[in-house]
């Protein structure tokens, strides 16, 4: 991990905003599972055939979207990739 990455995650963890997070192996190591007519169908690779793939995730607890955007915009990946901020489903 680069110094910049480490600094970012240390700060996030220290602030208590990040509850959990990790990098995922690339899409080429993914296996997509579907069940159709009781058959388990496997496919090599991710479910979506887009060029962009999910590289990791962090679960953060924020007061509002502005705080989440601030956290996301400081993520090392934001400068060349994209961070998708998605709320959890609350029933």
């Amino acid at each position, binding site marked *: 991990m680069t110094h910049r990455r480490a600094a970012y995650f240390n700060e996030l963890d220290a602030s208590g905003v990040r509850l959990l997070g990790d990098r995922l192996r690339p899409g080429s190591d993914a296996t997509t599972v579907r069940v159709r007519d009781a058959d388990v169908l496997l496919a090599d690779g991710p479910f979506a055939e887009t060029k962009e793939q999910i590289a990791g995730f962090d679960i953060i607890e*924020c*007061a*509002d*979207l*502005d705080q*989440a*955007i601030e956290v996301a915009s400081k993520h090392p990946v934001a400068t060349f990739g994209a961070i998708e*901020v998605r*709320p959890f489903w609350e029933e």
Partner: protein
Amino acid sequence: MTADVTAALDEAFRAEWGKVIATLIGMTGDWDLAEECAQDAFTQALRSWPRDGVPRRPGAWLTTVARNRALDRLRRHASEAAKLQQAVILSPPDDPAGGAVDTHITDDRLRLIFTCCHPALPLEARVALTLRTLAGLTTAEIARAFLTAEPTMAKRLVRAKQKIRNAAIPYRVPPAHLLPERTSGVLAVLYLLFNEGYAATAGSRLVRHDLCAEAIRLARVLAGLMPDEPEARALLALMLFHHSRRTSRVNAAGDVVTLENQDRSLWDHEEIGEGVSLLAAAVRREQRGPYLLQAAIAQCHATAATAEDTDWGLIADLYGVLAQMVPSPVVELNRAVAVGMADGPEAGLKLADALAASGKLTGYYLLPATRADLLRRLGRSAEAAVSYREALDLAVNDAERRYLARRLAEAEGTAPQQSRA
């Protein structure tokens, strides 16, 4: 109902809708509930004002009625106990006379406008939501104004409100470090709204609702709410300068009349006067934002007694500063026009040619149209004709096309030469 009461209701609706909504969202956090209760309050006014007379402070009256309605509704849902508690905490003590309420309302309306224009919402949703919650337009009116089907617009509004709730877009004036960026986002939405209306008045489109008037009204609210923000005042001034020319921009045949050929006696000098003083106040702040520069340019036109009196040199300089602040080929093109007027068509053509060579405005009809005008003024009719034809191929607006066709005919010598401007 007497005409007096009808006018009062109308006036109250225009002036108070946004305030009532803003207060109720601030109090309950529930956008749909806020809309319903505001609607209820206005319905109640429709019933009771003709009977009991218009209250001394209609806004406070409406807010109080709407707030009580909201509290009633929330109390009725025992399952929403938590919400109610929050609502009670957030709501100020009842004050039917409306003494202390106004400052609170002011804050809420500013929170509402920043929330409606939050950059995490799609642009068209920001515009629609602003028109619905702040200006009080109905979904049908907004749909008509944007030539969209009503169900589409309704869906867009529902989606935007859902996103605000589900993604937890905060209902607040952004903190200091976000304020400049978010403010310019709000101003952009209002200016887009204005331009949408302004373009429509010159095209073949019929809009029932005057988007320009709504944009000006909202800009005035914003400028009032943010007295320390010169750009808000400058935007209002800019809109007023444009708006002052609305009746002289198109002739009886529906053709565009260029600025130089407009009848300046038709201009709305009251609006121009207001723009001038707004701009003067904004300039005192010693910040030079893009709206201030654009307003200053518009002021040069608006305050010139005749087209010949226009201070093209100053306009060219202002475009130069603007181009440095917000690099844009359209600004460069306008600068070329100004330079063409200040220093002669030769100098303007040089800039326009450089811009054409850069390829940055390929496909934009105003580039060949500008080159054509400059070439015409240099007496190079054949080249002018080529450029007019090019512009004609790219233009989509009917009135613009008629203007270009007329110029093309002149350049080709197939029509009587008009008086040279």
